């Protein structure tokens, strides 16, 4: 019989797993864990089908699933250190996906990741590969330096919306335009999380943030920037896709896109950038599951999901 294994001291009590479980297997504990959070327990283990939805949405890699004698495991490309993200923040899901892809492609030991400035400034503590910490917005310039000097390495950046689309926009456009053979993981949560919820270049029209307390006024701040659509217009071949991680199915699609992005790098095909719509429950002032719903209702219509640009086969041949 399939079963859910909960590493309770990693849990921050966001309850996303409980919302994701279609069979109502999980319920919150009455005791607290070492961090001081209530955590999920298998209240109805007999209902578990081994679907892994709980594992897929858990932002703290606190859940593994046993099914038919096989147990899922924490990716090798993640360190043991618990994430520093707020409860329910989907950064952790994206970290896990990147780590799983590095493991599955067998490239962890020749990968260099670049952490940005923003909520994921400490990403170098979480990815179990060589890492560099960039200054604000310059991750792709740093990646360019590494990749041009050592083309044998697999190089990825992990950046937020302020880092990539505001202060680092020049580096973003020019790295894409030069066709740097790097992979960019772009986390768009429509807000500056780490500095306390200020307006981002991707904050939605009317969305309240601490520097637009009456909502983003597009007459003053312009419209939120659709990064992948902007980059699509460059003639240089690229792989550009937008995904989200607000529910289990989207998490699976996100992983597929991230994997494809790294594959294009490994083949020397093109620049690749995956925009991941992410939640910021604290910055948005919502419960984690409400944040997922808000993302679906408000962000997805403005930021449509899917592959926005794929390298053309003829160009692939010429470049490989």
């Amino acid at each position, binding site marked *: 019989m399939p079963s859910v294994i909960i590493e309770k001291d990693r849990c921050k009590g966001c309850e996303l797993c409980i919302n994701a479980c279609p069979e109502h297997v999980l319920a919150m504990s009455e005791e607290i864990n070492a961090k001081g959070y209530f955590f999920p327990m298998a209240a109805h283990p007999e209902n578990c089908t081994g679907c892994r939805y709980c594992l897929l949405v858990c932002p703290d890699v606190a859940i593994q699933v046993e099914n038919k004698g096989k147990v899922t495991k924490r990716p090798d490309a993640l360190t043991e250190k618990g994430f520093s993200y707020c409860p329910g923040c989907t950064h952790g899901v994206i970290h896990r996906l990147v780590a799983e892809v590095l493991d599955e492609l067998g490239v962890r030991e020749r990968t260099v990741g670049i952490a940005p400035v923003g909520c994921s400034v400490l990403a170098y503590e979480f990815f179990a590969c*060589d890492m560099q910490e960039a200054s604000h917005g310059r991750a792709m310039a740093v990646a360019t330096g590494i990749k041009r000097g050592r083309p044998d390495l697999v190089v990825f950046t992990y950046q937020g919306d302020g880092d990539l689309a505001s202060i680092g926009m020049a580096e973003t456009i020019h790295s894409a335009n030069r066709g740097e053979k790097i992979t960019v993981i772009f986390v768009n949560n429509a807000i500056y999380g780490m500095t306390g919820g200020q307006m981002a270049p991707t904050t939605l029209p009317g969305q309240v943030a601490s520097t637009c307390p009456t909502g983003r006024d597009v007459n003053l701040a312009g419209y939120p920037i659709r990064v992948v659509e902007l980059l699509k217009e460059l003639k240089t071949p690229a792989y550009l896709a937008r995904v989200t991680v607000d529910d289990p199915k989207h998490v699976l699609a996100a992983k597929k896109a991230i994997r494809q992005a790294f594959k294009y790098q490994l083949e020397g095909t093109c620049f690749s950038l995956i925009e991941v719509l992410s939640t910021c429950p604290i910055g948005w002032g919502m419960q984690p599951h409400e944040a997922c719903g808000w993302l679906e209702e408000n962000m997805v219509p403005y930021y449509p999901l899917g592959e926005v640009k794929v390298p053309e086969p003829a160009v692939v041949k010429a470049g490989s």
Partner: protein
Amino acid sequence: MAKKLMKGCEAIGEAAIHAGCRLFFGYPITPQNEIPEYMSARLPQVGGVFVQAESEVAASNMLYGASGAGCRVFTSSSSPGISLMMEGVSYMAGAELPVVIVNIMRGGPGLGGILPSQSDYFQATKGGGHGDYRLLVLAPSTVQEAADLVIDAFDLADTYRNPVMILGDGLIGQIMEPVEFKKEIKPEDLPEKPWATTGCAGRARNIINSLYLDPEELEAHNWAIYAKYQEMAKEVRHEAFNTEGGCDVLIVAYGTVARITKTAIEMAREKGLKIGLFRPITLYPYPTEALVKAAEGAKAVLVSELSTGQMVEDVRAAIAGRKEVAFHGRVGGMVMGPDDLVEQAEKLVAVPA
């Protein structure tokens, strides 16, 4: 190897290749465009890579990445561009990354002008970007010396895991002189950098970083890099010229002004005035002890710079009130003639009427 007539900028580029450097990231700015132009043609011939960055900010961060991945790498720019690079420079100092940065100075502040200047002395020797750090700064006064110092700069950068700056001016960059390259280092012969991010196979992972959120850790880091700067003191270099047996006036000057001083020395000799030259080659660390010694035998000390007075502060700190230290500067791209220096020197030793 036979001597070759080369422009300063081109000799700097060729010297970097002789030092085993195969990577250049930069952005065009006058008066140093011959360096990126030279590198864009030469690097592909030797299996290297030239990238014209979107800005000096980006270029300095490309240096960070490449150096962090264990590569010898360099860039060049001129004053306004160097200001933009200061972000990356501060991070490289913090993350202890060896790179070589060439500043062919022009007049400022702001856009200033495009003619020779020495107005970035403070920026180069006192840090330049934010945070408590120093660069090792070398100031050539001939094309040959520029080539020699560039080659040495890469080794010094690696030894101290610190950015090294070559501080020249438009004249050194543009002048043509015979030059030979004293050695050729092949990139494959360079020692491994075990701290670099080259993939973690078979070892613990490496992290290139300047973030220390714990104040105790950051303080320890600050003192550790400070200790490194103290250790750099053993790298001091200078030239003392015409100072044997003392002199009437000791002129302290670097780079182009030191060249002019040598002509002034000849002119003064005809007038029966003995001028000596003290020329610091390392601007940081500053050759303080040697300067004090040279100044002992001089009746007067005159500092001359293409600035309103920057290095003069270090000279006055070294002399520490033991002698008057006079100053003569030209700015904005204007350059003093040797006759100006003779006139200034004569004033200092004139017997009051």
